[in-house]
Each structure stands twice: as structure tokens, then as C-alpha cells.
């Protein structure tokens, strides 16, 4: 594996969001995995940025990301134009585990949506039942609706201001319908993940995909750790290597 050069084929920008399609050598991945990404810039910004895989087509050498501009690195990624280069290392990290029989709940918010879109597509392909919950602040922040439609998924939408779907947090409909699900997959802001963890613990297996600042993205710097507790023992685990997906019960928020 190596940091590889990809060519930007298309970059669809909408507000702070950009949906990038790049082409190059693509190794098959699983939903929940990510790449460490940078543009053709110098030492500033220095580090690669972790981005979840939104979709891929290894046979055609295609890879897709959905980026939200939040700082300098994502600002530059969002500004990429067709023909420019993108450098990426991956796929990295441990993917979402396969769901048990029954219906899976996928709960996403913000830039937590892309890996769940990828997961939804995979589950649909395999005929696995799922309900996709997406929460956002307002209608403009609801993401990847086309991709979901393509995958045959009709998401349950919630916006904090009620501008699209149900008004309020996405955890409200999840809570109401929790009994329907044999597994819950969540990715999004920490507040959402904490709420999902609280809802699910002791009731239904949950898998949370976490974010952390990453130095390397492949396990060697120990920069991305999160506190976990397994079998009564506390310790730190690497979001890039043991994660980004963790069983909901093990996470100890700090």
C-alpha cells in the first residue's frame, strides 16, 4: 500500500459540501473504512486528512468522498477541480461488522453520513433490511439524498429546525422504533453517538464510527486514541486501527 495519486474526475460542490469522484488504483474496501487524503500542496497543511469512503468501483478505478469544509485542509479539498490531483492512502481501519439477521438501523449526521451511505448500498445489495435515519441542523445539511435514492433507500429525515422531515434530533425516531432493530450503526457528531450509545446499551448491539485527529491513519503514531473499557479493563485504542468502528458499549467518553 502507498500514498497514491488520483485524478479528480468530478467535484460537485453544494454549500460547504463537496462530492468528489476520483480515479486511480482502488483496492476493494468495506463500508466504514477510510482513506488519508491530501491535495498537491506543500508542507502546509502537513498531515493527511481522514475521509470515509462514500462509494467505490474498484474495477473501474473509481473512488468517492463527501467532504465538508471545516478548516484549511477541507477547504482545499472542497476547492479541487476536475483534472487536479488528490493523494490518498487506503483503505484503512476496521469496517462495520456484518449485521445479524433482522433489520439494521443506520443513524447518520453530518460527515458521518458518507460511510453509512456506503453501508446502506452494500446491505441493500445483499437484501439485508435496513432503516436509514439521517439528522441535520437544517435542510441544506441533509446529505447524499440522490445516492440513497439510487441505492433504493428512503431515509427517515430529521432537522433541528424542522425544515425537512421531522423536527428535532434523529435519536427521537430511533428511540421510538428501537425495538424493530437487531443492530444499530451510527456515525456523526459526538453528541449523537453518545445518545445512540445510551439508547442501545443493554438492548441492541450498536456500532459507532468515531472521529479523532490522526497523525498517520495506519496505526503507528498512537495519536488518535480513544478510551475504551473491555472486560472491566480500561485502556486506549487507536481509532485508525482498532476503529474507526467500535462496539457502542466499549467507548468511555472523556
Amino acid at each position, binding site marked *: 500500500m502507498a500514498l497514491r495519486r488520483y485524478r479528480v474526475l468530478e467535484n460537485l460542490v453544494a454549500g460547504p459540501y463537496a462530492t468528489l469522484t476520483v480515479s486511480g488504483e482502488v483496492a476493494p474496501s468495506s463500508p466504514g473504512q477510510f482513506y488519508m487524503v491530501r491535495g498537491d500542496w506543500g508542507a502546509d497543511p502537513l498531515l493527511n486528512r481522514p475521509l470515509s469512503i462514500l462509494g467505490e468501483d474498484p474495477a473501474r478505478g473509481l473512488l468517492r468522498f463527501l467532504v465538508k469544509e471545516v478548516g484549511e485542509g477541507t477547504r482545499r479539498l472542497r476547492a479541487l477541480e476536475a483534472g487536479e490531483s488528490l493523494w490518498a492512502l487506503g483503505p484503512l481501519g476496521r469496517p462495520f461488522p456484518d449485521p445479524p439477521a433482522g433489520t439494521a438501523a443506520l443513524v447518520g449526521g453530518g460527515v458521518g453520513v458518507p460511510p453509512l451511505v456506503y453501508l446502506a448500498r452494500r446491505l441493500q445489495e445483499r437484501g439485508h433490511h435496513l432503516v436509514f435515519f439521517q439528522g441535520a441542523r437544517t435542510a441544506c445539511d441533509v446529505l447524499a439524498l440522490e445516492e440513497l435514492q439510487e441505492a433504493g433507500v428512503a431515509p427517515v429525515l430529521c432537522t433541528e429546525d424542522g425544515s425537512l422531515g421531522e423536527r428535532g434530533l434523529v435519536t427521537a425516531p430511533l428511540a421510538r422504533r428501537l425495538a424493530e432493530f437487531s443492530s444499530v450503526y451510527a456515525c456523526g457528531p459526538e453528541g449523537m453517538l453518545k445518545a445512540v450509545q445510551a439508547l442501545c446499551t443493554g438492548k441492541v448491539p450498536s456500532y459507532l464510527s468515531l472521529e479523532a485527529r490522526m*497523525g*498517520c491513519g495506519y*496505526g503507528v503514531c498512537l495519536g488518535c486514541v480513544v478510551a475504551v473499557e473491555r472486560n472491566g479493563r480500561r485502556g486506549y485504542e487507536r481509532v485508525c486501527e482498532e476503529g474507526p468502528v467500535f462496539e457502542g458499549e466499549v467507548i468511555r467518553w472523556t
Partner: protein
Amino acid sequence: MDVDLSVTVGTVRLRNPLLLASGCCGYGLDMEPYLDLSRLGGVCLKGLSLKGSEGNPPPRIWETRGGMINAIGLQNIGVEAFLKEKAPLLRKVDTVFVANFYGHTVEEYAEAARLLGGEPCLGALEMNVSCPNIQAGGIHFGTDPDVLHRVTEACRKATPKPLWVKLSPNASDPVAVARAAEAAGADALSCTNTLPAMAIDPEARTFRIRNKVGGLSGPALKPVALRIAYQVSRAVKIPVVGIGGIATAGDALEFLLAGASAFQVGTALFVDPTCPYAILDGIEDYCRRHGIPRVRDLRGALRGEEEGEIRCSG
């Protein structure tokens, strides 16, 4: 023209002058998906302590302009677990492994050196002395020549293995600490570790790193580490291993020309884990272009060295 890339660091012979820096390549094996370790000069393993450490609470890293700050807190599995679980796997890999280690007391250092010194897969031991000395009010082992002499001597007595002392760039007089390590029996000096640094989040009005202070590494550090490698290599007889912000062949050549016998690549691995190949290719190409048959001939091969004394900057 064939270029001989091999170098020696004291009695340690390396296939080429490139080593992976401690803390930037795990316990070596973590790099195997990216690098054939047997094509490298060597691999410095994550810093080990007698009892291991769970490290600091997160957040542990922050990016700065041209660099990064880390306060991993020397998380490690401990010498014993390393010898039992990792070392047997390393024995099968044909490269020079260097065990980086630290302690909080002179005795801990010496004991770690003794235990690691018995492991056949290790080509050398590297003392990380940028650690607070709890017996001496938290002053770092690496900044006071006397303290450094004492801890180096203790390790020297504890093992016959080649002993490298990794200097802190945070010493007003790096030559004094370098000479202290040399006098105490060090076989080589690694120049340098990270610089103590800080970053603050103005919006949250808090530290970017939970530990408040961390170590600055990457390109931002290079000019400082290079100056120290130069000063130290001119002041001691034992070899110097250059470290700090090396990301390209040009960076590595600067350290070799400044007087280093070999060099280590750290933070640059985070950006591109296969960069060692590009660096080695670049060095080979440089030697060919300049008609230099042996990389080791580059050591300290600067022109204009004699000229004048060094005056004020500013």
C-alpha cells in the same frame, strides 16, 4: 556507476543510512504493509519503559505550520511484553532494529538497558533522554550534562550493546550534553528529539493538547535539528545520527553533509509511509550525479567550512 549505500554507525553496519524514527513506526511490523524493512538501514522502535505506559489522555496531537505537536506520553507495552511478544517476530526480519527506551530514574534506565541488551534481534539501543527525571524535580535527563553523564554511564555498564543517546534539541549548549554522553560511553548520538511546544484553541480557550505541552516534529523542526547535528558532529568523535523533519532526499543529504553518519525519518512517514524509498532513490541519484561512489563519503563533506567565526544572527 554503482553507489555503495552502506554506512556504519560505530560498530553497527547499516545497509543504507535511512532508519525509521522511534514513535513513528510502531514496533516495526506495523510498517510491513508499506515497506520491505529489509530494504532499510534500520528501524528504531517505539520508546519502551520497564513497566510500559498507557500514555497520555487524548487529544494527543495537533498540526502546526510545517509541523506537528505530539504528547503521546510514550505509550508502550513495556520491555517484558516487547521481549516476549514482539522480539521473536522481529528476529525473522533482516534489518537493524534499534530499541528506543526511557525511564524515570537512573535505575529504571539501567534495568531497561540490561534487559533489552540481551535480545539478539536488536542491533543497538537508543536512550530517549527527553523525559522528566522524577528523582531531580522533573528536570529532563537530557538537558543537564551531569545528569546525562550519570544515566548514560549507568546504561553503559548495564549492557555491551551499541548505545545511542538521543539528544533533546532543547539544550542551550548541545555540545556540552553531547560531550557528556560521549564521555560516559555512548557509541553514537541521535540528533534530535522533538522541541517542547504548545498550541491553544482561542475559541475554546483551552490547550489543543490535553497534556498542554507536546513535542514539535516535522519540517518546522529541521533547521534547528540540522544546526545541532552540525554542532555536535564537529564536537565529538562518536558518530551522529541526524533526525528532524527529513522528508526528501535533499533533507537527508543536508544532515549527512552536516556530519551525520545516518539519519532517521519520522513524521514524514505519516504523510507517506513509502517515502523512504523515494529518499533512498534520491540519495543514490545524487551520488551518481556528483560522482560519489560511497554514501559514507558524504559525511561532513561541506565546502567553505573553514571560513570565519559564527557571528550574531538577528
